[in-house]
């Protein structure tokens, strides 16, 4: 059985609704006002009108244009308003003018696209032999124009609202008098800063950033243990202000955060105010324009700012991690808005973070750390040798959590280019740097006993029961050099590096997790 053309019902300039199929042989002509070829053919379409059993419908793609066309060509055939383009979209029109002849059931019998005089003449011979047309007044050939449905932005809107849209998330219609920005604050979708309205067309555009099925589940997000589909992550990426090419990074980050190893539930819930810190490595850094140089840890770069924010918004909106709910941070932390940066691998003499963690240099990788503080600046404009500078790092880093907190877990050390150069003078490897930090921060237990100055430290009663050699035993700041995660970032100018303090590390808290970023 021949395929039926899509049925439709559109309002005409005459104020009446005209339905297709017409229960008689009919001609539907799709046009737009600013198309010269449409204007060329409309007198011919008008000439068809009223001919032996031919019922003509002209569907125009703009409302204003329809009025102009009807007047310009004194059209007596009904001119229908398809300015929302739903019918043009349903007919999958690439080029206008498009003229389709259909029988009474709505089965296509004939079709013309653009203007080819010979074709049109033959068309008239088939359908309106007695029509008087001065064919010599017409050019041989004129191409048609692109249908408005082919405009990229309009096409996304149409795809988003069509019946076979890939979007499944609930659609919320704001009231006509509502300010959508205020509405989103009221609904609790925001971290406190303005968010971009996730309209269906924006979400659809965001999904172009990945080849993954919008309905595939990336992870289960605590505390609500909610399934995070690619689509839900895309909605939150729109809220955060992301560009579609960032989406693969965010998907990988959500996947990393929702592992038992990273323990997003504990990270977001803790009174200590931990937050995921994201470090991006590999070719994607350049591809999406991430900042790893001047102000890498600060504001001003869309990718850095919005990727970190998108992860946080996904944890908040999909997972339900909200301050005052399960998120119980005593002071909070500005990193909870966003903390994401890239490593300047090319400026580093060392293997980059992702290679140290087992990936190929050509892989794009995101690594998540649970950090409670930072970036804390290490100011050293004086050291001229590698061991001095590494010593400075150690002395500053000993303050993490508390000077007396030793055998701690993870931290991130961000070494700036000028400091990299100083460390290079001593041919320092990452291992040398870690060893030096551990060496300089090592203190005998007797120096780490709680006292009148501070109640933090080894319990004096316990210390009293320890033999002297035990009290002489030195404890480094970090339980292992491997807890010191070193990356290079920052501008060429400035002898300032920085470190981030960790949270509860290891299986009882959070372990850093890396995920390869799947590029579309």
């Amino acid at each position, binding site marked *: 059985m021949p395929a039926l053309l899509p049925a439709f019902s559109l309002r005409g300039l005459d104020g009446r609704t005209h339905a297709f199929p017409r229960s008689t042989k009919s001609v539907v002509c799709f046009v737009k006002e600013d198309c010269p070829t449409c204007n060329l053919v409309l007198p011919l379409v008008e000439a068809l009108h009223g001919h032996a059993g031919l019922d003509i419908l002209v569907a125009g793609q703009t409302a204003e244009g329809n009025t102009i066309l009807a007047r310009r060509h004194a059209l007596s055939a009904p001119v229908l308003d398809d300015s929302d383009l739903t019918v043009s979209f349903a007919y999958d029109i690439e080029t206008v003018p498009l003229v389709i002849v259909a029988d009474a059931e709505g089965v296509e019998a004939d079709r013309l696209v653009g203007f080819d005089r010979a074709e049109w003449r033959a068309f008239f011979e088939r359908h309106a032999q007695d029509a008087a047309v001065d064919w010599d007044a017409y050019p041989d050939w004129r191409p048609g124009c692109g249908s408005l449905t082919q405009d990229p932005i309009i096409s996304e809107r149409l795809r988003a609202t069509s019946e076979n849209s890939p979007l499944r998330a609930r659609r*919320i219609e704001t009231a006509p008098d509502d300010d959508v920005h205020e509405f989103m604050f009221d609904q609790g979708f925001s971290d406190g800063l303005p968010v971009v309205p996730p309209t*269906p067309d924006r979400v659809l555009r965001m999904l172009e950033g990945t080849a993954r099925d919008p309905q595939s589940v990336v992870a289960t997000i605590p505390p609500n243990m909610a399934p995070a589909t690619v*689509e839900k992550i895309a909605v939150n990426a729109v809220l955060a202000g992301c560009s579609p090419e960032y989406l693969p990074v965010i998907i990988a980050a959500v996947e990393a955060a929702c592992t038992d190893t990273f323990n997003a539930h504990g990270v977001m819930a803790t009174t200590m105010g931990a937050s995921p810190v994201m470090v991006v490595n590999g070719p994607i850094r350049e591809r999406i324009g991430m900042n790893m140089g001047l102000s890498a840890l600060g504001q001003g770069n869309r990718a850095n700012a919005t990727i970190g924010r998108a992860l946080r918004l996904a944890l908040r909106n999909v997972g339900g991690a909200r301050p005052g709910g399960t998120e119980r941070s005593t002071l909070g932390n500005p990193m909870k808005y966003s903390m994401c940066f890239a490593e300047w691998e090319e400026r580093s003499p060392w293997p980059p973070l992702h290679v140290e963690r087992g990936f190929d240099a050509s892989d794009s990788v995101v690594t998540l750390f649970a950090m409670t503080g930072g970036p804390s600046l290490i100011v050293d404009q004086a050291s001229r040798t590698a061991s001095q500078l590494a010593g400075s790092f150690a002395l500053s880093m000993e303050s993490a959590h508390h000077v007396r907190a030793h055998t701690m877990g993870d931290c991130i050390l961000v070494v700036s280019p000028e400091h990299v150069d100083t460390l290079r003078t001593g041919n320092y490897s990452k291992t040398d740097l870690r060893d030096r930090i551990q060496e300089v921060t090592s203190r005998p237990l007797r120096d780490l006993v709680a006292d009148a100055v501070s109640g933090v430290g080894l319990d004096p009663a316990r210390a009293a029961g320890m033999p002297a050699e035990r009290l002489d035993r030195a404890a480094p700041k970090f339980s292992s050099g491997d807890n010191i995660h070193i990356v290079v970032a920052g501008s060429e100018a400035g002898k300032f590096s920085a470190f981030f303090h960790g949270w509860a590390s290891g299986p009882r808290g959070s372990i850093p997790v890396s995920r390869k970023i799947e590029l579309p």
Partner: protein
Amino acid sequence: MTTIMDPTDERVPIARTVSPRPPEIAGTLALLDISKPRGNVLLDRLEELLAERLPAVEVNRYSKPTFTKPAPQALRQEIRESNDFVIEALAD
């Protein structure tokens, strides 16, 4: 009017009502330590007081492997099956 896509998980939480308050404390009672520092100190003292005031109540002690993660399913099930009451020392 603007149409936006819902960024949340779209689930409606199940409303639960508080269990009716029993007329007396009898049977078994669980004390759950979430493994925060000094949570055990609080629970030790509670256990002493319970032993003084409610000597007939049997007290069972439990602890979570780590305070940073939700209690494992098996532990929650065991507490529910073996006890009539539970007191949890939350944190800090």
